[in-house]
C-alpha cells in the first residue's frame, strides 16, 4: 500500500469550476432511534467538499448523534436503529456491502477531550498508518512529520517526538489528535466540540488550523460556541429536538436567520 499525505497533492485538473459545490455527504430522510427515543428526525443535509460545516444546537438536540452517524460510530450503541440514507461520495454508508473500516479510513474524527494514546507522540501519529501496513521507517517518519506540520504542531514537538503524548499541554494534545486523524489521509474530518476543553489561545490555534485544513479536507464541526461557528464555518446547521431547523450559509444564519427558533438560539435566548 502506498501512502501519500493529502496536503502534498496538487489540485487536479478535474477540480470543479469555482462556485460549483461538490457534496461529500448527502443525508436523505435520515431517522435514528435509540430504543424508543427518536433522536434524529427526517434529516436532509448536503455537506460540501472543502467547506467547514458547523452543527449547532442545545444539548440533546442530536448534533453529536448526527456526526457519529456519518462514520457509523453510532452503531456502537446497542439499541440504535436508523432509516433513510447517508451517501458518502455517492455510496450509501448503510448498505450491507459497505465496510465500516473503509469508511473510517476516509473519515477521521477528533473528540471533545484530547485523547492521545498513552504512547510517544511519534507512535500516536504512526499508529494508523502502521495498522494499514506501513512498516518502512522512512515512510513513517515522513508521514509523522507531514501530519504534525499539517496540524500546525511540528515546530512545537519536533524535538520531543519520543516523549509521551501526555507530557504536552491539552491544546497541543488536541492538535496531536488532529495530526493523528490526518495521518490516515482522510477525506473528511469530523470534530465533536474540539475546543471545548481548551484555553482561548489553543482554541484560536485549532480554529486557524481548521481554516487551513479545509483547503484539503471537508470538515464537519459540532460546537457549543456560537461565535466559533460564526468565525470558522462556511455553512451552519441548527439542530433542535432531533430536527434540522435551519441550514444555510453561516453569514445568513448569524445576520438574518429565517427561523425565529434559530434567532432565539444564536442570540442566547434559549438553550
Amino acid at each position, binding site marked *: 500500500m502506498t501512502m501519500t499525505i493529502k496536503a502534498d497533492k496538487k489540485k487536479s485538473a478535474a477540480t470543479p469550476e469555482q462556485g460549483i459545490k461538490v457534496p461529500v455527504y448527502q443525508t436523505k430522510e435520515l431517522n435514528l432511534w435509540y430504543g424508543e427515543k427518536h433522536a434524529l428526525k427526517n434529516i436532509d443535509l448536503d455537506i460540501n467538499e472543502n467547506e467547514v460545516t458547523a452543527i449547532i444546537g442545545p444539548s440533546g438536540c442530536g448534533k453529536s448523534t448526527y456526526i457519529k452517524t456519518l462514520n457509523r460510530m453510532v452503531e456502537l450503541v446497542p439499541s440504535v436503529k436508523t432509516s433513510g440514507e447517508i451517501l458518502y461520495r455517492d455510496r450509501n454508508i448503510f448498505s450491507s456491502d459497505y465496510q465500516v473500516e473503509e469508511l473510517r479510513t476516509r473519515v477521521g474524527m477528533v473528540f471533545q477531550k484530547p485523547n492521545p494514546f498513552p504512547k510517544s507522540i511519534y507512535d500516536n501519529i504512526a499508529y494508523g498508518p502502521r495498522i494499514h501496513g506501513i512498516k518502512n521507517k522512512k515512510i513513517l517518519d515522513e508521514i509523522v512529520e507531514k501530519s504534525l506540520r499539517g496540524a500546525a504542531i511540528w515546530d512545537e514537538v519536533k524535538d520531543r517526538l519520543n516523549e509521551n503524548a501526555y507530557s504536552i499541554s491539552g491544546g497541543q494534545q488536541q492538535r496531536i489528535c488532529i495530526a493523528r486523524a490526518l495521518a490516515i489521509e482522510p477525506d473528511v474530518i469530523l470534530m465533536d466540540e474540539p475546543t471545548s476543553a481548551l484555553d482561548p489561545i489553543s482554541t484560536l490555534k485549532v480554529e486557524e488550523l481548521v481554516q487551513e485544513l479545509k483547503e484539503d479536507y471537508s470538515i464537519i464541526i459540532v460546537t457549543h460556541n456560537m461565535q466559533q461557528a460564526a468565525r470558522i464555518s462556511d455553512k451552519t446547521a441548527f439542530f433542535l429536538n432531533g430536527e434540522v431547523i435551519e441550514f444555510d450559509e453561516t453569514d445568513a444564519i*448569524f*445576520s*438574518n436567520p429565517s427561523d425565529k427558533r434559530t*434567532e432565539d438560539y*444564536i*442570540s*442566547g*435566548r*434559549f438553550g
Partner: protein
Amino acid sequence: MSVREKFDSELNLAQNQLIELSTMAIEALDKSIDALINHDIDAALKVIEDDAEINVLEEELNDRVILIIAKQSPVATDLRRLIVLIKIASDLERIGDYAVNIAKETIRIGKEELVTPIELIKQMRSLATAMLRQVIEAFIEEDVVKGKEIAELDDQVDELYGEAIRRLMMAGASNPEKLSQITQLAFISRYMERSADHATNIAEQLFYLVRGKHYNLNN
C-alpha cells in the same frame, strides 16, 4: 425571565437614550426656527449652547452600544438593532447641528426685517419635526408601514424647499441689498430640507432592523 436579562436591560437603556436624543434634537430644531421668527438672539444663543448636550448624549449612546457589542457578542436582529441605534443617533446629532446652523444664521440676520414671509420655512419645520417624531415612534414600535408613510412625506418637504428657493431668488432680484439675508434664509431652508432627509434615513434604518435588508426610501 429572559436568559439575556442583562443584555436586554442594556439594550433598553441605549434605546431610551436614543428617544431622549431625538427629543433634544427635535426641540433644538423647533427652537431655532422660533428664534428666527421672533428675531430672538438670546434664544438662538441658547440653541447653540445646548447642542453640546446633544453631542455628549450621542457619544454616551455610542459608547454604551460599543460596550454591549464587546461584552455580549450580539448577532442577527440584536446586532442590527445596535448598529441601527448608532446610525440613527448620528442622524439625530446632525439634526442638532442643523439647528445650530439655523441659530447662527438667525444671529447674522439679527433684528433686520425679513424680506419674504417665512410661511414656507414654518411649514417645512412643521413637516420635518412631525416626520422625526413619528419616525422615532415607528422605530420603537418596529412599524415599517408607518415608516414608509413618513418617508413619503419627504416629497412634500422637497416641494416646499423648491418653492422657498424660487421665492427667495425672486426677492433677491428686487432687493439686491438684502442678498446676505436671502442667502441665510436659503441656507435655513436647506437645513430644514436636510432634516427631513434624515427622517427618511431613520425610516430606512427601521426597514433594515426589521427586514435585515437595505432599502432606499429617498427615491
